[in-house]
């Protein structure tokens, strides 16, 4: 458990709760209660029941034969794209909505980038009959129109974030401001392993179901719960943390986190945080973030809205700094090509986020026969416009 959070809310040098006093009571309430609530038997029972009957878990671990043949390794896809609402995000929103109910909250707010977390939040709010407000960057509202429509159908109010770069980081700022102004009855469902402690830990715990299942499925399918490699894409890093979680202490399992290089790491249009970033504080935790020498946060770029974030979760920063995880990056074009490749070899259209992880397979060298798990974090329906434009379909 050497990579888990300590009692002060830190992962090595990263984490903490850098929040204005207005948020302290809310965050402190969560900190004091989250483990108690999550560990409660009734909570676990309800969570797992919903995971099974509502989300459709366990998600399959699929041995992709034609992809495996191409790379000369056994490529397993963890099919989070098959979850209800089409991505891993629902694992966390189910967990947090149950927790919010236990805390007596009546109103739910969330930020969203690609819209997947917004949809997953609006979905659980409809399910549990709670008021729902989603903050989404103006730019993202434009490029993810189908998800905006979904959220509205589900009864959520979608509020455009028009400050800064008008993307995920600004939607997060707006959600935090909402929480400051509604300190008593509102719970903020953060969608990634970012934010002040205990959010990174809480979200990682809910997403850890991904690696928990993967281990069992690997034993069934290969007889060994330890693959050679585990790959996942990283924006804030929630699917990656869920995918890495139960492998972190298996030091012989290589963890590979794939960031978005955008138009290239040196192009000025990138979201490759570990490559371009420095240590600093954003959205309530100390981590690695893209910033100027003066500490102003730099606008990121990625073709995929879900990776368009200038930081990474503090636990990722720790895995990166200690060398436990290898952090690499993939360009917009490489990811789109990998998305098309998976579609044509396996009949699966991946989210462009997940396609970043797939694209890295092209750059790896295999001796032959290695077991490789890739987290297919979401499906590509929401990205059809981008695929159509790029491939002139």
């Amino acid at each position: 458990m050497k990579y888990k959070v300590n009692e002060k809310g830190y992962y090595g040098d990263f984490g903490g709760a850098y929040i204005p006093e207005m948020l302290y009571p809310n965050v402190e309430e969560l900190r004091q209660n989250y483990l108690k609530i999550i560990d409660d038997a009734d909570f676990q029972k309800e969570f797992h029941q919903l995971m099974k009957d509502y989300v459709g878990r366990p998600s399959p671990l699929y041995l992709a034969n034609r992809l495996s043949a191409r790379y000369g390794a056994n490529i397993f896809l963890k099919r989070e794209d098959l979850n209800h609402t089409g991505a891993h995000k629902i694992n966390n929103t189910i967990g947090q909505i149950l927790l919010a109910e236990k805390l007596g909250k009546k109103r739910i707010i969330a930020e969203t980038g690609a819209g997947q977390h917004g949809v997953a939040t609006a979905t659980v709010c409809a399910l549990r009959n709670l008021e729902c407000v989603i903050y989404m960057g103006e730019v993202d509202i434009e490029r993810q129109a189908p998800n905006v429509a979904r959220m509205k159908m589900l009864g959520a109010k979608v509020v455009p974030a028009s400050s800064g770069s008008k993307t995920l980081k600004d939607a997060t700022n707006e959600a935090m401001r909402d929480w400051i102004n509604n300190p008593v009855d509102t719970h903020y469902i953060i969608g990634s392993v970012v934010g002040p402690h205990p959010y990174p830990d809480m979200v990682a715990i809910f997403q850890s179901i991904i690696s928990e299942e993967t281990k069992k499925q690997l034993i069934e399918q290969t007889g060994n719960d330890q693959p050679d490699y585990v790959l996942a894409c990283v924006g804030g890093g929630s699917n990656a943390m869920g995918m890495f979680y139960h492998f972190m202490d298996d030091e012989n399992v290589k963890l590979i986190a794939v960031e978005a290089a955008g138009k290239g790491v040196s192009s000025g249009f990138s979201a490759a945080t570990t490559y371009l970033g420095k240590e600093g504080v954003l959205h309530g935790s100390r981590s690695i973030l893209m910033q100027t020498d003066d500490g102003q946060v730099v606008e990121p770029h990625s073709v995929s809205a879900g990776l368009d974030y200038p930081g990474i979760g503090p636990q990722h920063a720790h895995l990166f700094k200690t060398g436990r995880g290898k952090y690499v990056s993939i360009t917009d074009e490489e990811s789109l090509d990998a998305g098309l490749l998976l579609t044509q070899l396996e009949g699966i259209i991946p989210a462009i986020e997940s396609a970043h992880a797939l694209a890295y397979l092209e750059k790896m060298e295999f001796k032959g026969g290695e077991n490789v798990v890739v987290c297919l974090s979401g499906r590509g329906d929401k990205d059809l416009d981008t695929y159509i434009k790029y491939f002139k379909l």
Partner: protein
Amino acid sequence: MNRIKQLFEEKKNILSIYYTAGFPNIGDTIQIAEALEKSGADMLEIGFPYSDPVADGPVIQASSKKSLDQGMNLKLLFEQLKDLRKNVTIPVLLMGYVNPVLQFGVENFCKACAEVGVDGCIVPDLPMVEYEEFYKGCFEEHNLSNVFLITPQTADERIHKIDGLTNGFIYLLSSSATTGKNLEVGDTTENYFSRIKNMNLKNPTMIGFGISDKQTFDKACSYANGAIIGTAFVKAIENGDIEENVSEFMKKFKG
């Protein structure tokens, strides 16, 4: 003696004004300070801008963005403040978010503050535990007061802890809100202000967030040592002549 301490010993109904450095024009920082002192402000809070100011409402966000777009950064701000103490004698605090301070270096930041004659800081997203462990020594070495915020939701025990950790004043938020919301003094707010007043804290208190006119200012002064005005002032100096705007604005409170 620290100028903040002296002010609270000598005066009541203290009026403190917040403004964003480098706004409306990049070179206005010192001129505004001097104009405010001339028009009777008792204390100044100069904001250094940050790209992601989560505790701020639209007006201060916009001023921060404009200031950044015009090239403001901490290095430039300290250059601008080099001559601060030529004409400004009232206490001056810097207010901003922690990340620019981290990148500037805590030690360098404290040193630069002391060199230009800054008396204290307000860093809303710097947690108490971090301050105690990593910042306090440096702040005290350079005779800087660190001001903490409290809200109606802050527990008594925590208020006492803050009172023990700071030596300037305590910043009472009238409600849990981002900057620029109007002060509505209902029963709950009055109860909260009275509760704090009766705690007999060692530090003086200043009420902030939502003070915009003489009436709200006087109300705040009946519960605390004074009040802080931010958003209303930033709005008032957005366009037109600085000297005129400042003196017009201050007349409302000091007339």
